[in-house]
């Protein structure tokens, strides 16, 4: 059953005063409890879209609701539901971890709750740094503080803008564990990342933005099925001069000076492979080795961004 929508973006666009059109009109529904990955090259409009939803940038047109609250008309209720971890590490260096997290909770209109904040710092491995000034922390620790600030008011929706950029392996692993934990608690997570492997591993759905347009929104699994290609390479013992007509249905190609046969199957399907192998055996074409390659989300992303580049309006 499809989960109800928690963020609804209708016809949202953004043009800057300079005339730069950052976002073409976008429609998007984020479902409650999902992890939604927003992918796109640098400057595609990912951060602009996130900043519009969070109230940092004013949209030129359209409407956004968060948990049913209009982000402009009913901004208090909408913003109380949302936590944001921005891309840049911006912190008040002279504050202690505890003070800055308490500040964020208060700023978002929540009454003090020391047990909750203590638990939050523990989950983010920040307990030992509770009374340290932020300037004394490493980059990775500062990133954790940013996450703690975003979660300090117990939001139901969390935006993570490039959360793992410049983060070491250990922190990245911790961060994804945290994201999984949050999802289990019912928090909806929208993230942008350029580590496409992470989106592939974590996300339920994927949206691709390119040049300000939402090129595609798809269930990750469906996307892999639809756009994922399986490539089968058969290495032969003796070179073939030409492709036998019997193999025509599989649309194979000769590679490696006749020493390899390559066959591309759409949608990750492999139904044709056993038949192909049987036919080759009947034709007495000896096979030395075989390998398969399934395209990753990264391959899909690159092909989407290069092939479906929308017309740029000026």
């Amino acid at each position, binding site marked *: 059953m499809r989960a109800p929508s928690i963020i609804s973006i209708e016809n949202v666009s953004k043009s800057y005063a300079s005339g730069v059109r950052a976002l073409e009109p976008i429609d998007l529904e984020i479902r409650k409890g999902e992890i939604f990955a927003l992918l796109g090259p640098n400057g595609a409009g990912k951060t602009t879209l996130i900043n519009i939803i969070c109230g940092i940038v004013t949209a030129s047109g359209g409407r956004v609701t968060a948990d049913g609250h209009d982000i402009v008309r009913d901004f*208090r209720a909408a913003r109380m539901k949302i936590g944001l971890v921005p891309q840049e590490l911006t*912190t008040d260096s002279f504050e202690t971890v505890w003070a800055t997290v308490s*500040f964020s909770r*208060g700023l978002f*209109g929540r009454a003090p709750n020391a047990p909750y904040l203590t638990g939050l710092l523990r989950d983010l491995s920040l307990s030992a740094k509770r009374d340290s000034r932020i300037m004394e922390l490493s980059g990775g620790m500062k990133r954790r503080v940013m996450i703690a600030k975003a979660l300090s008011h117990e939001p139901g929706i969390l935006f993570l803008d490039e959360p793992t950029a410049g983060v070491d392996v250990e922190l990245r692993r911790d961060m994804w564990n945290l994201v999984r934990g949050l999802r289990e608690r019912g928090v909806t997570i929208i993230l942008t990342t350029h580590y496409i492997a992470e989106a592939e591993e974590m996300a339920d759905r994927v949206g691709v933005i390119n040049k300000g347009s939402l090129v595609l929104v798809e269930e990750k699994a469906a996307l892999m099925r639809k756009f994922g290609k399986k490539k089968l390479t058969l290495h032969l013992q003796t070179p073939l001069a030409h492709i036998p007509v019997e193999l025509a249905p599989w649309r194979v190609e000769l590679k490696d000076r006749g020493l390899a046969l390559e066959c591309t199957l759409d949608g990750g399907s492999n139904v044709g492979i056993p038949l192909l192998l049987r036919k080759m055996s009947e034709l007495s074409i000896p096979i030395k080795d075989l390998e398969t390659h399934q395209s990753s989300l990264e391959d899909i992303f690159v092909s989407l961004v290069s092939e479906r580049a929308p017309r740029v309006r000026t």
Partner: protein
Amino acid sequence: MSPARIEFNGYGVWAIYKFEVARALRTLVQSLVTPVITTSLYFVVFGAAIGSRMTAVSGVSYGAFIVPGLIMLALFTESLSNASFGIFFPKFIGTIYELLSAPISYVEIVIAYVGAAASKSVVLGVIILVTASLFVPISIVHPLLMAAFLVLTAVNFSLLGFTLGLWAKGWEQLQLIPTLVVTPLTFLGGAFYSIDMLPPAWRAFSLFNPVVYLISGFRWCFYGTADVNIYLSFAMTAAFFVACLAVVGWIFKTGYRLKN
């Protein structure tokens, strides 16, 4: 459409207020000791060294005469720098994102920042007053009005400072108004003299300086004598307040230099 509700993010306002006061406490030397030392130096130079050779002004000894002006001078400078820095710094380092994404209205943001800056200035004003009383005998004829004047002026210049902090794109611009406008106006506004001591042409010219009305009104609260009509002083203070509010309101309404 949701029904109109009267909402106030009290926790948010308190969080900002506390943050700003904590900033002042962290930099106690800069925010408190420096102005006190500066004021004491003024007393040594103008009160003791020069003042002893001067006759009384409007029936008040020169050392006592300059006290209200000195408090005002400190109030202007500190309110401006405190409030402008308070909002400029988050813009400069990028932490403004949190303020912009928080469920807090522009009015609440102004209350918190301006309230914190004004509180600090009022405390400073009182400390300078106490310091001054160690040097010269001070009488306060209208203590309640003096307190009201102190608070209003602190709020006014904090509002002006907040506007400045919103407007400034860099450190240079942040210093521009205090250095080029406020300090000269204060020195020419009768902090150290009565404008009656000026030649008639300069006196007439001084009446275009709004600071004259603030210092004169504040001095009236102390000694009951003023360069200009006291009602005019109050009217100018009120007009200043409304003008600052209007500018801040306009800035927030347009998102000018805060939001794209």
